[in-house]
């Protein structure tokens, strides 16, 4: 990475008073949220939002559709659950172990997959993730069909008690904000700009002297590690790790969340995750109709508002501004 970011300048994104105000309001809302909404639901939303944001780093900003992110999500949740339950780790160490595992796995998978693009990249990641699924199905420590159950909720750092959902919420909130800050930083750094350049025109980025492969690999590892963070946190919230998390459907679900929310926008995946998880939770009493509704929403998203919820809002605001300016 000896290149100097000559051609790429970060977009203006100063901390204007309006932005700071919005940030404070959102933070206050997040802190107050568990008083109004059921905390387990909120934690689930945050886990999936982090997962979708990490995934968006690949799909939205690097332009690579990975169809195997479930292996990082589920793999980390197995490692986290196993280290805490069997080896007696505290939650933060369990999460670190999960993240480290996901990062190493991401590096190995990335080295293989990054050589290809488009459908081939998607297929390579899908194939590797299926291999990992069958490994988890067979391996002794994962508990096969039954999964790893009854993961204890030990105190964070040995001091912060998380046995009540209410306390755990704030721990998860901090984890989510850290993860989100890392993604935000990555996207709005020169590194993020290079990724976007590669997405738009890879040969050109290479001709400018950027080592596209290395950038893509780094983005992949980062995305895998953050996905691992989400998976590990989920294992603690639900006190279990199961095959659901490594199955290919999970890889598909995160694509759905990202597309519905708005791919390539920083906040889109969070909105998408909230919408999808809310549907799973609050429409559960409709039985099988949940899946039908999910399908309809996906079709609507793809055919009517292709930029996703947040993407459309941004486009709308922009159009109005331009109108006002003209």
């Amino acid at each position, binding site marked *: 990475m000896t290149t100097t970011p000559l051609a790429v300048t970060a977009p203006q994104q100063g901390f204007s008073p309006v932005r700071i105000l919005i940030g404070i309001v959102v933070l206050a809302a997040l802190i107050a949220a568990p008083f109004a909404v059921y905390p387990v639901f909120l934690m689930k939303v945050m886990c999936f939002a982090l997962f979708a944001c990490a995934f968006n780093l690949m799909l939205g900003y690097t332009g690579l559709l990975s169809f195997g992110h479930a292996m990082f999500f589920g793999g980390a949740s197995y490692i986290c659950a196993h280290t805490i339950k069997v080896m007696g780790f505290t939650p933060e160490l369990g999460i670190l172990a999960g993240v480290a595992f996901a990062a190493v796995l991401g590096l190995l998978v990335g080295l293989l997959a990054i050589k290809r693009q488009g459908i081939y990249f998607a297929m390579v990641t899908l194939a590797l993730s299926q291999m990992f699924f069958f490994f988890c199905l067979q391996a002794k420590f994962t508990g096969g069909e039954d999964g790893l159950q009854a993961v204890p909720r030990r105190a964070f750092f040995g001091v912060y008690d998380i046995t009540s959902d209410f306390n755990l919420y704030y721990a998860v909130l901090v984890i989510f904000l850290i993860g989100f800050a890392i993604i935000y930083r990555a996207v709005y750094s020169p590194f993020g700009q290079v990724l976007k350049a590669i997405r738009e025109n890879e040969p050109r980025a290479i001709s400018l002297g950027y080592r596209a492969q290395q950038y893509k690999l780094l983005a992949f590892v980062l995305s895998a590690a953050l996905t691992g963070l989400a998976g590990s946190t989920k294992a603690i919230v639900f*006190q279990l790790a199961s095959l659901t998390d490594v199955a290919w459907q999970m890889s598909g679900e995160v694509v759905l969340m990202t597309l519905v929310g708005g791919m390539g926008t920083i906040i889109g995946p969070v909105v998408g995750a909230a919408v999808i998880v809310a549907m799973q*939770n609050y429409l559960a009493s409709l039985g099988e109709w949940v899946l039908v509704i999910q399908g309809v929403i996906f079709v609507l998203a793809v055919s009517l508002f292709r930029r996703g919820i947040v993407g459309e809002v941004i486009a709308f605001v922009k159009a109005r501004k331009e109108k006002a300016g003209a």
Partner: protein
Amino acid sequence: MRFTAMLMAAASVFAVSAAHAQTPVKVKIGVLNDQSGLYADLGGQGSVWAAKKAVSDFNAASKGLQVEVVFADHQNKADVGTSIARQWYDVDGVDLIVDTPNSGVALAVSQVTKEKNKVFINSGAATSDLTGKACSPNTVHWTYDTWALANGTGKAMTKNGGDTWFFLTADYAFGHALERDTSEVVKANGGKVVGNVRVPLNNADFSSFLLQAQSSKAKVIGLANAGGDTINSIKQAAEYGIVEGGQKLAGLLIFLTDVHSLGLKTAQGLNLTSAWYWDMTDANRAFAKEFSAANGGKFPTDVMAGVYSGVTHYLKAVEATKSAKDGAAVVAEMKKIPTDDKLFGKGEVRADGRQIHPMYLFEVKKPSESKGPYDYYTLKATIPANEAFRPLDQGDCPLVKKT
């Protein structure tokens, strides 16, 4: 849906207060199962109906209980299942969760139920760990488990002359456990296992495995698999004429609805173990008739009957303890009073949470023998209640005091 339930609940309040002038004990029952995936047929809305039927047959309102039934789809995901369970217990005031097929989800829900001190009556899941290593003072396992299925099919078939076995095993923990448990039973009853083959999960082509099974000349081919794998292996076995060739197929985990979707032509001659079959007693037939009228011609499975039976017994216990709030106390009461209802007859709930009743070995009829819709099984053997389930001291359940 919910509105009418509320109206009915409100109506029952008035009825009760008029009769007894005492505040009714509120009970909320949540049916948590698969409503959209591969287990939707064997439980699904049928279990919801069975739970509601149990409530109305129990005449809850006249006994000072005000019962409401809700339901949800866990989509076979343990995290969806636990979030619904937590939300039901924490926010919606649910006291009892019933059914819940899929072993992974069931174990997770059992865990949450213990933490929140509510009651979990499982009818749909197979894992015998629910009353073994993972047993809980708040969980009762009602209808069947892997041990009972392996034991029922293995023992009865070996005794009936099927003394050499070949296993077609799904290659993961569940398949291995079924094969191991069944082989032990076969050997203990003087039979012999002549071979086995491990088949990858979700396999589409069983031909080479079935040919191995055929050439092994074993009298019985045991299918240690589940769901789509079982269906596919039975279909392809029919194409190879395995049953016509004199070998017997033993399904270790198969339900009435599976036989229905396979059709008698394909499934004929298959042996299987079940806890309940509609065409056995007058009470069962009456239940099935009513069920069928309300559910578009479908017939109830043993899982649905188990939900009915379990809910009935639970309501008896709540009536005795006068409150549904302390789950462990209700389950303790359930263990104290003997079980007795029109579908499962007399029985008991053991210290480890296992409900005890007889199991039955059935053979699937030939198309020519079947007289009407869902007339599929012939009874081959009855496994008496005291032999049907794993002995109390062999399950490693911490609730059972070692002597």
